């Protein structure tokens, strides 16, 4: 009653993977089943050409026989070839996980790093995906199966002839806590948490907030021996109503008591990410006064921006950078900053002003003339200002960790919490 398969056999998920650099070279390919010719990437290159900008290449492309699902990370394209109906998010998440793993193993996810470690890369890819089913994607487990390269190890390996492949089954693989390996030992037991909040905002011409929300994460660095069971509680857990959890967190405990209870993975990991959207909770720490104008029928314009603090909770705002994509007709800019330094790239038309810190006594400003291409009509669009900043020791949402308790182990760990607020996609329209 079953017939043998026709032309294309079904293949769950990823059939093949191509890694492509910015100049369009395919520098690595991996096939999980039959070999798919590189020529399939021509469809991708076509889409890339159409998109003009690398960031605008659509993530799902259909070709006569395949679908190409791609991500763009660290100036590399990860292009996967798909033959049947699959959840694209599954593929995209997986591809990001592959990139994360490279980052984790080689310190950077770059063409050079991948080429330098091509065999490990191959072994990793094989270990991460089997017949389209993700096998081991937790960094803890992978590292037990395939040791990351270190200078020391490659020296030792070449002397002793031992390999960088583990030959025992990773311990966490099948336990109920696959994210943690057994038998962890540290001389100094430490648990650090970083509460990092990014403000995404759109501010309109008049300075009022069109849209603002906070994207927060708590990243943890846990170096604790044995099987510690941690509970992290907050002063104001009610702030957190839209949260994504690391699988280690016991969801029921959170639902009933608003306490994060978990056996942590070993090392660095993201414990939770959260979103605070209700407008009145999102403080906007800076304001910008701006006046950018182009004169009709003349080849110049005026540019004048000033930045000042606002709702900064008494903390210093530092690391301020302003980036502006100027219209195409701008040839050059002749500006004077009262503070910091600026650059203008006449090719990409990007103005970058590195401001530094704000001192309320003397607000930093950048003023001067804009040279336009002569004869061209004055630009219709007004450039948006993209602002970066950082505020140490402050979670702008007001989130505060109350305490961390540890159960299951006897020793006393060293604990620490750090807060920082940054600008995310913070845009001021002019």
């Amino acid at each position, binding site marked *: 009653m079953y017939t043998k398969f026709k032309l294309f056999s079904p293949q769950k998920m990823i059939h093949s993977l191509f890694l492509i650099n910015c100049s369009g070279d395919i520098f690595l390919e991996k096939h999980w089943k039959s070999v798919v010719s590189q020529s399939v990437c021509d469809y991708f290159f076509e889409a890339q050409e159409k998109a003009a900008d690398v960031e605008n290449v659509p993530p799902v492309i259909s070709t006569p026989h395949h679908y190409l699902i791609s991500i763009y990370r660290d100036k590399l394209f990860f292009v996967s070839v798909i033959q049947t109906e699959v*959840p694209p998010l599954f593929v995209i998440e997986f591809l990001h996980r592959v990139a994360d793993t490279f980052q984790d193993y080689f310190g950077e996810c770059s063409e050079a790093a991948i080429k330098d470690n091509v065999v490990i890369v191959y072994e990793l890819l094989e270990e991460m995906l089997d*017949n389209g089913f993700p096998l081991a994607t937790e960094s803890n487990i992978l590292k037990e199966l395939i040791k990351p390269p270190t200078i020391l190890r490659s020296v030792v390996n070449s002397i002793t002839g031992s390999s960088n492949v583990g030959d025992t089954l990773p311990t966490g693989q099948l336990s109920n806590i696959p994210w943690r390996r057994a038998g962890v030992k540290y001389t100094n037991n430490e648990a650090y948490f970083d509460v990092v909040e990014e403000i995404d905002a759109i501010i309109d011409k008049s300075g009022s907030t069109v849209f603002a929300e906070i994207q927060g994460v708590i990243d943890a660095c846990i170096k604790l021996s044995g099987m510690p069971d941690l509970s992290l509680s907050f002063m104001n857990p009610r702030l957190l109503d839209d949260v*994504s959890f690391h699988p280690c967190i016991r969801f029921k405990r959170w639902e009933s008591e608003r306490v994060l209870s978990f056996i942590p993975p070993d090392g660095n990991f993201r414990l939770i990410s959260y979103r605070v959207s209700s407008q009145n909770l999102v403080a906007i720490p800076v304001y910008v006064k701006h006046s950018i104008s182009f004169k009709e029928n003349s080849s110049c314009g005026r540019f004048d921006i000033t930045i000042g603090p606002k709702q900064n909770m008494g903390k210093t705002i530092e690391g301020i950078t302003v980036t502006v994509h100027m219209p195409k007709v701008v040839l050059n800019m002749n500006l004077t900053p009262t503070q910091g330094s600026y650059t203008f790239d006449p090719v990409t038309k990007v103005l970058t002003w590195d401001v530094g810190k704000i001192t309320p006594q003397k607000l930093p400003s950048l003023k001067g003339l804009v040279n336009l291409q002569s004869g061209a009509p004055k630009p219709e669009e007004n450039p948006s200002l993209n602002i970066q900043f950082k505020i140490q020791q402050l979670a702008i949402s007001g989130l505060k960790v109350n305490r961390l308790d540890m159960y299951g182990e006897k020793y006393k760990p060293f604990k620490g919490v750090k807060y920082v607020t940054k600008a995310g996609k913070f845009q001021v329209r002019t």
Partner: protein
Amino acid sequence: MTDSKYFTTTKKGEIFELKAELNSDKKEKKKEAVKKVIASMTVGKDVSALFPDVVNCMQTDNLELKKLVYLYLMNYAKSQPDMAIMAVNTFVKDCEDPNPLIRALAVRTMGCIRVDKITEYLCEPLRKCLKDEDPYVRKTAAVCVAKLHDINAQLVEDQGFLDTLKDLISDSNPMVVANAVAALSEIAESHPSSNLLDLNPQSINKLLTALNECTEWGQIFILDCLANYTPKDDREAQSICERVTPRLSHANSAVVLSAVKVLMKFMEMLSKDLDYYGTLLKKLAPPLVTLLSAEPELQYVALRNINLIVQKRPEILKHEMKVFFVKYNDPIYVKLEKLDIMIRLASQANIAQVLAELKEYATEVDVDFVRKAVRAIGRCAIKVEQSAERCVSTLLDLIQTKVNYVVQEAIVVIKDIFRKYPNKYESVIATLCENLDSLDEPEARAAMIWIVGEYAERIDNADELLESFLEGFHDESTQVQLQLLTAIVKLFLKKPTETQELVQQVLSLATQDSDNPDLRDRGYIYWRLLSTDPVAAKEVVLAEKPLISEETDLIEPTLLDELICYIGTLASVYHKPPSAFVEGGRGVVHKSLPPRTASSESTESPETAPAGAPSGEQPDVIPTQGDLLGDLLNLDLGPPVGGPPLATSSVQMGAVDLLGGGLDSLMGDEPEGIGGPNFVAPPAAAVPPNLGTSMGSGLSDLFDLTSGVGTLSGSYVAPKAVWLPAMKAKGLEISGTFTRQVGSISMDLQLTNKALQVMTDFAIQFNRNSFGLAPAAPLQVHAPLSPNQTVEISLPLNTVGSVMKMEPLNNLQVAVKNNIDVFYFSTLYPLHILFVEDGKMDRQMFLATWKDIPNENEAQFQIRDCPLNAEAVSSRLQSSNIFTVAKRNVEGQDMLYQSLKLTNGIWVLAELRIQPGNPSFTDLELSLKCRAPEVSQHVYQAYETILKN
């Protein structure tokens, strides 16, 4: 020391050198050589020539070396099947290794080697591994069954692996359960009919338990599997939902979206009054919004899905407008999607904000985005009436910018605004006319011409303006030509004295100098109309146009329901059902949302509860793909389908003559019967004029192709009846019935040979009949029919055959031939097989048409003891393409107003009064109005058949 050194040897004798190294005695050297081979493989170099040498390295204690050789094998075994056999022994031995890692690795690799000969050897090791004591090996083996099934399905079945796999669903280890589910889903996908994943409350419970404990990827497999389950009642649905909701907080977005799919699907079964329903709605919003802060690729997929979700349940995200505001550095594909969703969420409450944003976007740099933003402003005006004025003034501001593409887009949308709010904003026409010269895109030109034609009486120099377009008539696109033709005719009818020459000119351009049949046909129709009866022409061309609907480009509801079942998949990204694009078209099952049932009621039969929501609530949809049709019906020619009646019959007859349709033989005595649709249809469907009767079906075909309407609906099918008894036909017995499914009619026949000799050479023919029914394909009986044998044949029919009025109307005379003789019989077909899928009339039109049809054409019928209530009546009729246009409750009686359309374009309007008789049976009073009253009797019979069976 890095691996990049492996890339450096590109000399000529490379393969030769590698060969020598692979055969070296030194382990280290061997390993280095294999690494070099792998490195070459990664960049797509062909190193298959080294196959035997690499395989020789396989027997080693060094795990890394073993793994590398395995990697190589998987890549090249297919091209070297005979050599690959050499590796089998090592695999089999490794499957017995004390180290579970090696056992798993061996079984995993073996499954990836797609060589038939090897597969046979795989069975025994695989069987052992499926029962291995170590769960790591079991979970790997589960996946291996899927791989093996892909290579040789029969083998997997014969060896009983499927049962073993089913047993693994009850495994104690959640990872094993997840992989077993994944493997079974994959196998089931290639055999939709097989009942592999037999889901029942017990197995569901196991899956839900495993869901909490397995890895993120396993969770996705389990959730996708859960989504295919149909709970038996709302209580079970709720309890599954409760256990799935925690997944919404998972960090992996694919898990979140799969959970959303399960919830969206099961929610369908929950009553809206339930507290839990409200809770669930609230819980769905935050995770969806959170997806938008992820990487842009993830955002894109999420947005495509959110687009479906806001159409299905707008209440979920109605307060979240702001998260869809566009940031200037979003990738363009994200921007366009966000914009789409902003319009869907636009309402009176947030329109001011939305407009301010859209205006901002209209000054951005990216052309595609700007265009879409301008168009969006127009859509807002049409959607939210209170904002129309502000939208128009915003559009005018934008026109002032004189940016070419902005102006063109603005004009296109202003035309729609005129259509929605007639006589309100015409003051802006002057501004529009100023920009006439800058229009270079067909759509904008056509829109402008329409405006000039429509408001010719207010534009002093309308004739000059139109004349200027006429100069380059033949270089214009069809769209512009058609529009120009209509506009000039309008102008002529409004200002006949000055424009006679112009109209002559355009008519001769259209009819004599054009190769385009649409244009020519339309030219002739106008010409004939104008020459025979200018008064009638006026009523046709200048008729009042129906208002355009509020929401354009909504997804058709049944398709939307199907797509909701595919949330998170490629189908949801492309907004097409998987059957539309999956390679090879492996029998994809249509999924449908579960019907809403109360726990006390037994499940209704699928026929009475079609997947779509009750028709009364659905917004009218103008499918975007149907633009051509929409344009013609709404814009070009005055009266659309079933529009106001035409004044005199002589004009009518003229038009019919022109079309040369065979309709008159049927309708000869009822000239009014040929209403708008026939008149309008030929240019739309572009059928040759002599196929007049097919126009109705041509139209419905168009709908079917473009919007996939009716994939889930199928008309009522009567049981087969004996049409030709054996004794009358020398031993051939024919029984049959008629069906209509997805817009195609077929005659399902059963031929039985009751003679003693073999029958061959079958053929079938129909006599001319009232609706032009004819076989669309020859009668296919593949093998000779031996004595006592029966064959079932489905004969597709169409309605393009010759027409002759029959008595009774639905009589069909059929001739069947075989090697013995020719036999004749006649049968009556139920009229509902002729009810087309686009038979839903707009409310206003319904009212107008109802009034226009003279009262003497009204026929009244009684349907007694119908076992259904109003709701069920409506939905059952809808599955046979009788559409409820409106519903009213008058003094406790439900009144349904319904419309249907026959394949030849005849509309039938119905008023159905439902009198609640005793609790289980109702009496129905049916009033039918139709321009061709002789069909009423048969329509009534169709009603009775559909409702009573």
